[in-house]
């Protein structure tokens, strides 16, 4: 990695996330300051219920921040209109696409939606982008299959291809490796890494795969109760940040192997 100046794609300034209704605010995490640059693969790590999904929803503009700012390409996310935002941020969610009767090609083509005309006609450029993202994810041979014919791992790749076809500088994925076996977990994360290198996109994903994330990511956002630590895996290893991720006792972080072990 060279150290020339990189463009900031995503930045938060004193961001508070949580839920609010008319009477009360429930703050999940306060004062989050992170920055993601182009071409970076960033993992959001934390135990269940710590607020990873809320954080990602706030970053993608689906949910409003309680306080502070989310900047996408140095512009505040609330000020970006929804169609423009669709050309800046694409999502891969945990909920599966509801209509499995779509073919892989059709599903990936829906990523071009923000760019097509009123009836959704695909231009030559759209077709080229779809083809490219199918190639990048390595699923060209699947394109005529229907989604109900796919395995979980294949479907995840298709969803990633759809997000890539949306051609946004930032891709956010919520737990892209759940339901997958170890091989496919590694495969998907490696694929994300490859995509950041090849397309210079910034990719942010929430995951429980700490061991894999440490090996692959450029940056890790570690979410703990009301505290967020950010850094490269190496920095976090040195500061011992991983040892407090889980409650004490059952599992411990083994610095030597940079992985978690069950306490004997």
């Amino acid at each position, binding site marked *: 990695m060279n150290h020339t100046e990189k463009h900031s794609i995503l930045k938060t300034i004193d961001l508070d996330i949580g839920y609010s209704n008319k009477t009360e605010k429930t703050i999940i995490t306060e004062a989050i300051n992170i920055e993601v640059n182009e071409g970076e693969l960033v993992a959001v790590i934390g135990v269940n219920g710590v607020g990873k999904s809320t954080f990602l929803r706030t970053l*993608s503009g*689906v949910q409003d921040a309680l306080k502070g700012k989310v900047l996408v390409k140095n512009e505040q996310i609330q000020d970006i209109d*929804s*169609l*423009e*935002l*669709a*050309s800046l*941020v*694409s*999502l891969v*969610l945990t*909920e599966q*696409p*509801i*209509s499995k*009767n*779509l*073919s892989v*090609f*059709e*599903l990936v083509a*829906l*990523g071009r*939606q*923000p760019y*097509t005309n*009123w*009836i*959704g*006609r*695909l231009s030559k450029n759209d*077709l080229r982008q779809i083809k490219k993202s199918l190639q990048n994810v390595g699923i060209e041979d699947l394109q005529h299959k229907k989604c109900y014919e796919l395995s979980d791992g294949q479907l995840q790749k298709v969803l990633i291809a759809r997000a890539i076809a*949306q051609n946004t500088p930032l891709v956010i994925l919520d737990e892209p490796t759940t339901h997958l076996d170890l091989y496919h977990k590694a495969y998907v994360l490696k694929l994300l890494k490859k995509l950041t290198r090849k397309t210079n996109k910034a990719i942010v994903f929430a995951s429980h795969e700490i061991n894999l994330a440490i090996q692959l990511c450029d940056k890790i956002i570690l979410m703990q109760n009301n505290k967020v630590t950010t850094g490269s895996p190496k920095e976090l290893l040195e500061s011992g940040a991983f040892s407090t991720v889980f409650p004490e006792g059952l599992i411990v972080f083994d610095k030597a192997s940079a992985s978690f072990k069950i306490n004997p």
Partner: protein
Amino acid sequence: MLQSQKYVLPLLLLFFGVIFLGFLNISLGSVNIPFKDVFASIFNLEVSKETWRYIIVEYRLPKAITAIITGSGLAISGLLMQTLFRNPLAGPYVLGLSSGASLGVAIVIMGASVFGGAFAGILLSKWSLVIASSLGSLLVLIAVMLASLRLRDTMAILIIGLMFASLTAAVVSVLSYFSPAAQLQQYVFWSFGSLGDLSWNEVGILAMFWFVGIILAVSCIKNLNTLLLGEQYAKSLGVSIQKNRLIIIIATSLLAGSITAFAGPIAFVGLAVPHLIRQIIPVNNHSILVPAVILGGAALMLICDIAAQMPGQEYTLPINAITSLIGAPVVIWLLVRKRKFLF
């Protein structure tokens, strides 16, 4: 695009099918009219018998057009509802529109006797039924729309629509319980549905509503496709869910509401035609589904109307029964044959 070219042929076949069925529908009826004179009447040429011209132009032609409008309109509302709610069981009735219409008509027909004499005379003209059923569906529509503006969850709207349907059905039952047999029978006759009672003026009004509804549906095609991915994805693609939900509900209400007002509560078509089309043309892209469902709905309704006429017979069977009698076995047969439910 390659994928849509594949579907041009089935669409063309459907289109010519509708035209053929339209002619067939007009040529058949209780009076035997030679093909030559049927054509002559339609194109305003010399007809052998003036009564034949009258039958064709004033009765059969508006009836065929009504069949096309009701079939296509109900089918499209069914498709819109199924996609909006991501529920294969949805149809135009899920918003409670036909139940609202039924309630309006029930109050007019049966309420007249309950509330007493002087009222009854004015209330029982045909237009009052049309107005009552429009008002009924409009009231339910407003209630559902208010709910949809307040609610984030689309599924909650589905439940609210069904609740309204069951509420109104309950009121209709209570009214029926207290009505004399004659009124009850009149209500039952209305609920059979009818395509043949419309004058050209009424067909014109119905066509206007239909046109606006179809335009709104077509304007949503692109966003309907994103809804196939689920609402979250649709949002992330820059689609405003609330706005589209509102447009879809308005389109459905215009179509289903006006059709129920003029032709009665015709069941089944809205639910079944989208499934029939998905079985015949296995596609989920709405730029193909929407025209296919419009044509399919029109074709099915023309066939049902031909069957209801029972060519050469004096009787006309209730259209509402025929749609299910013909349609249900076809849907069952298709599902069993393909062994796969495509949605």
